[in-house]
């Protein structure tokens, strides 16, 4: 990541303390080292969680949205979350940046200490009174009522084994001008879709999205639910560039023994950033039916419950796919078949 390299170069130059209160390097502090760097900022200073105002031409160059992305990427690499607020005042352009400790989804406890009591500082930020973490608040994505084609069956009863690739699933902020979620399904290691898996085998969750504009960036979050309870959340660690408009597959690979035996309902939320500087939109697809992760028990029985195991990090990938190869009976909005 360029920002990491930049940071590393800056640290090696020994100038990490030569910054003013806004966290920017003093002009000429690292001559030769940072001359080509677009944002010669000492990001380490932002780890103190204090808000800073950066001025274009003094603390950064170029469009504020580039600094916005830079801050977001650096914060992620530091294990933090960047709050960024653009602030145009007449001919001057400013960006306020504040790093906070983590994100917390609505109805989730503090990710640091599991405290179930949080304090609201503003609509975007919560504070944990237990561990004093500042947490960026992620509300539930906006969801529209389910839209069904005539003849679609009602949702299957809970617990019934059925594909998660439900064409009638909801899409949230349905901005057809940017992108839409086409399908979501689970694949075996050989690429064949399946409905049930053993805990001993790896599986890939694949989300197909269709982008209508080039150069979109996406960041995907999947969550698994058991009943009304969310039991697992994973977010793509970086934003992925989709390149040209078309079909794209976002895949996340679950290694064997990552998930315990259970029946999960899957929900996918894809943040889409068109690079305009506007807030990203969120596409949501909720598996209205159930995916069954059913153990194919060996003869000597299931692995012992309660045995500790280490969960490896998930692998995410994004690639363009041929629309002809996408298996879906999803009818796009343009066809006018959806209500």
């Amino acid at each position, binding site marked *: 990541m360029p920002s990491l390299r930049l940071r590393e170069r800056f640290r090696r130059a020994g100038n990490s303390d030569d910054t003013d209160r806004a966290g920017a390097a003093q002009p000429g502090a690292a001559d030769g080292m940072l001359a080509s760097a677009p944002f010669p900022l000492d990001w380490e200073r932002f780890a103190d969680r204090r*808000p800073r105002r950066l001025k274009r031409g003094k603390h950064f160059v170029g469009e504020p949205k580039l600094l916005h992305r830079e801050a977001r990427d650096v914060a992620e690499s530091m294990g933090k979350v960047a709050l960024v*607020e653009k602030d145009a005042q007449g001919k001057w352009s400013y960006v*306020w940046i504040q790093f906070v*400790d*983590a994100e917390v989804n609505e109805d*989730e406890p503090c990710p640091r200490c599991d405290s179930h*009591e949080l304090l609201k500082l503003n609509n975007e930020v919560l504070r944990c009174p237990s561990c004093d973490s500042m947490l960026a608040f992620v509300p539930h994505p906006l969801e529209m009522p389910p839209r069904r084609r005539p003849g679609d069956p009602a949702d299957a009863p809970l617990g019934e084994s059925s594909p998660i690739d439900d064409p009638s699933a909801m899409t949230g902020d349905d901005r057809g001008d940017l992108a839409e979620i086409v399908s979501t399904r689970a694949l075996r290691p050989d690429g064949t879709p399946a409905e049930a898996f053993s805990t001993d085998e790896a599986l890939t969750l694949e989300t197909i999205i269709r982008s209508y504009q080039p150069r979109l960036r996406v960041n995907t979050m999947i969550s698994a639910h058991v009943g009304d309870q969310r039991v697992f959340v994973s977010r793509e660690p970086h934003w992925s560039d989709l390149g040209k408009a078309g079909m794209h597959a976002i895949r996340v690979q679950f290694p064997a023994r990552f998930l315990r035996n259970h029946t999960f309902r899957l929900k996918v939320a894809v943040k889409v950033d068109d690079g305009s500087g506007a807030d990203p939109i969120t596409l949501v697809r909720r598996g209205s039916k159930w995916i069954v992760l*059913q*153990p194919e028990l060996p003869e000597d029985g299931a692995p012992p419950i309660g045995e500790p195991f280490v969960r490896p990090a998930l692998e995410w990938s994004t690639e363009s796919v041929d629309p002809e190869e996408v298996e879906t009976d999803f009818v796009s909005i343009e066809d006018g078949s959806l209500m």
Partner: protein
Amino acid sequence: MDSIQTPEAPTTPRLVGAPHPGPALDAERPEVVVRDARDTIRSSISHAWAERHLAPRLGVRVLVKLVSGTKLGLSWLAIRPLMETVGMTLIFGGLLQVSAPGPVPYFIFVLAGLTGWKLFERTVFYLTRSFDVYRKLMKGVVLPLLLIPVASAAFPIVEISVYLLVFAASIVVFYFIDGQVYLQINTLAVLSGFALILGSAVGVGLWTSVLNGKARDVRLTMRYVLQIWLFLTPVVYPLSALPGPYEWIAAVNPMTAPIELVKSGLLNVGDVRGDDLIVSICFAAVMLASGLWFYAHQARRSIDVLGEIEEGE
């Protein structure tokens, strides 16, 4: 489905930057409760003090908003007091034949009174509007909330500095016209007057800023309240010109004493009465203390209400 076992710990919530072992799936998970953060006066002040370097950056927003898109730019800082004083002089000094006490020209008298009054009026006005001005920022990053009124009060102080410059320039002009120096400065009286005015204004503004965050009617109402208050205060007329039956208005008006202090400190024409001064000091102290308490407890809620108003619009 019969073979499915109750999972012992299926997964853990994984959030960016915060991996941790989560609770067991089958455990009873208590509901997550999100409460409004409650600040105290002390925590508000200490947080604001820690981030005091942001105050000028916030304060300059109002100035930029004022001059942005104008052809005359910063000249408006000087034009406004001049135009207001000229207008008042023409209406009250010319049309209504109100005169200043002693030999002081009415223009200079009004300018001295307006310098004190404008500090009060503009401070209350900008504090009342402060959540409107900083709303987007307050929702985007976590700013010390007490910095918002502090930054809002910065611009009125700049404005009053310009009023004082115009006042000084007028003294020079009238020296050349009349050959007399009308300035009779009493620094202690001027500073005391300004301190009382600022304390009262910030106290009132702390209340109205939060209330305006809940309902914008407050801003509209305050405009008329301040207009009426101006004419009830001896700004454009000397206190001695008030008819006997109406003197009680001046006595209970907490702005009377500080305005008289300013006029007395600049021109030695004020009539500072002990009773009025006590009323003013008590008013400033009560408003400041209660305003701080109210602001610390209610400001965060107003940010939310403002957000709802914006969405509603």
